[in-house]
């Protein structure tokens, strides 16, 4: 059973200069296509990971999933309800309550003037639920102590703050948690604690995660299914074992090759060519062709569709 169905999802941002500048400098409107035509499903009680470099649109997708941004095209269905187009407010509210989010920076995502107890129970309070003892119970579940409920966020370290964020996300008993780079701001030893906690909670609460990360090792460890994004498009989707042992798309291959490895002492990497192109003016055809070692004429002219290749899906003319 798929909890989340993302169909043909697109999002365009207007990045034009102000009207007067456009008139005086005779410039057209500029649009940035952050996400284009992305399709994927997330099975219930699984972890779906989106990886990609900066500007690949992974956070934009996460934000559209929780409803912080509205899609410009396509739709997101959660529990069979299309959040952007559903008109029945009761249905929307019911689904909304099942979605929570954990952000990257635990220093910025907790209100410094609120006590931890108030932070944690807010999602429940907002819907008029019962909150007595809830914060204390959740704090213990995420590995802090019940006495911490009366403290302020500045009294905690980064890893502890991220635990508070997780406790807040859990308080409304969600089914889906969107984790946007949950461990990027943390040190390695603390990252391990948070990742273990996330796995434990997934099992005990029956959670579904959308994990957004740029760190391939974290993704490999956590995910059941991985989607690789490049310039707003899904270029490959596979389960971790297949993706890491037999990547189909040349971009995935490049990414895996370039990622630093712990066991590769003095490895001489042939560093990848070039950088991510400007998303306002993406290359024609396959967006990866200027950096692709295998590119042929067809790649420059025709954009490859995402198609089944073995157990994976890849958007490459040459993948087999």
């Amino acid at each position, binding site marked *: 059973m798929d909890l989340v169905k993302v169909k043909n999802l697109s999002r365009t941002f207007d990045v034009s200069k102000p009207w007067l500048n456009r008139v005086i400098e005779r410039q057209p409107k500029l649009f940035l296509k952050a996400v284009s035509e992305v399709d994927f499903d997330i099975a219930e009680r699984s972890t779906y990971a989106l990886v990609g470099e900066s500007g690949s649109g992974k956070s934009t997708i996460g934000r559209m999933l929780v409803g912080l941004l509205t899609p410009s095209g396509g739709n997101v269905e959660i529990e069979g309800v299309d959040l952007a187009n559903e008109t029945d407010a009761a249905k929307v509210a019911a689904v909304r309550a099942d979605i929570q989010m954990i952000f990257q920076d635990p220093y910025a995502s907790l209100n410094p003037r609120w006590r931890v107890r108030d932070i944690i129970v807010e999602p429940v309070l907002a819907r008029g639920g019962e909150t007595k003892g809830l914060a204390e119970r959740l704090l213990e579940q995420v590995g802090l102590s019940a006495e911490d409920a009366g403290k302020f966020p500045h009294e905690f370290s980064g890893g502890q703050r991220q635990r508070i964020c997780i406790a807040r996300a859990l308080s409304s008993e969600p089914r889906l948690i969107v984790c946007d780079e949950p461990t990027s701001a943390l040190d390695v030893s*603390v990252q391990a604690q948070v990742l273990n906690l996330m796995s434990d909670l997934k099992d005990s609460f029956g959670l579904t995660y959308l994990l957004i990360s740029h760190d391939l090792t974290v993704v*490999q*460890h956590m995910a059941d299914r991985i989607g690789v994004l490049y310039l707003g498009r899904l270029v490959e989707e596979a389960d971790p074992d297949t993706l890491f042992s037999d990547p189909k798309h040349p971009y995935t291959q490049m990414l895996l090759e*370039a990622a630093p490895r712990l066991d*590769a002492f003095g*490895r001489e990497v042939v*560093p990848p060519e070039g950088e991510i192109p400007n998303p306002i003016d993406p290359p024609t055809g396959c967006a990866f062709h200027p950096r692709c070692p295998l590119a042929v004429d067809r790649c420059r002219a025709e954009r490859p569709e995402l198609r089944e290749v073995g157990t994976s899906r890849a958007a490459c003319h040459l993948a087999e």
Partner: protein
Amino acid sequence: MTEPVLSIRDLSVEIPTRKGIVCPVDSVSYDIAPGEILGVVGESGAGKSMAGNAVIGLLNPPARIAKGEIWLNGTRIDQLSGDAMRRLRGKEIGMVFQDPLTSLNPLLQIGDQLTETMLTHLDISRSEAEKRAIAALQEVGIPGAADRLNSYPHEFSGGMRQRVVIALALCAEPSLIIADEPTTALDVSVQAQIVALLKKLCRERGTAIMLITHDMGVIAEAADRVAVMYAGRLAELGPVREILTSPSHPYTDGLMASTPLASRGKSRLHQIPGSMPRLNAIPDGCAFNPRCPYAADKCRHDPGPQGVEGRAACWFPIVRERTA
């Protein structure tokens, strides 16, 4: 053995605060030989950047060097005056910071920034400096170097900007480059480019590089030797392969085990309980003892031996069969 470019002896940095003196760097010693990349790893607050800043004389007051010596090419530099230190910075020691956007002047064309550095430190003419600026940009792999001299920093992408910063650090041909988290702000593919560039420079020019990072993967690929720091102290120092495959300090061991690795599969990650102590609450004895699985009574009272080459700062180092 060749004379080390940089030699730090028993260096301590202290910061007086209202609640007493804290010590972000505590009795640290290491050497860097010419053409060597020394990786300095540790988590945030371990004092790795603070040690780098002490070397280049950029400690923010009230932080100050409390004791110890810093030798650069046989000259003691920790007692130099501000003026003498300024002449040294850029000429003998180049610096690459984490954020390439804030380490370039946004109002100056990069050509001007490069030539200014060279004219300050080297006795050359402006036209010669310009020629060298182009050569430096070419060396760090910026396409169309001659045309890019008149570009401003904002016209470059993140990776290209970091290359400019490296060119800037290189242009006066220093014998030591301190690279403080040079790839942390960059994407994986660009990070690989920058690491390859640093290795190439080190090999071709014999520049010594102090690579400060928290990323063990970068260390494994780039560094020759590695210094692991914890709570201001040197936990362990040695050849990178030895330290990473058979660590003898329990902290390094825990750190390596808690990094997600393909070969470990989906099992739970090893976790070190707790987190790095704050500077004003460093525990008695060995700073790692509250988190250490092997801690004994002795560890709670006595800080243990100082970490030096080949000897971990631990009473009970882990002994393993060294696999050659």
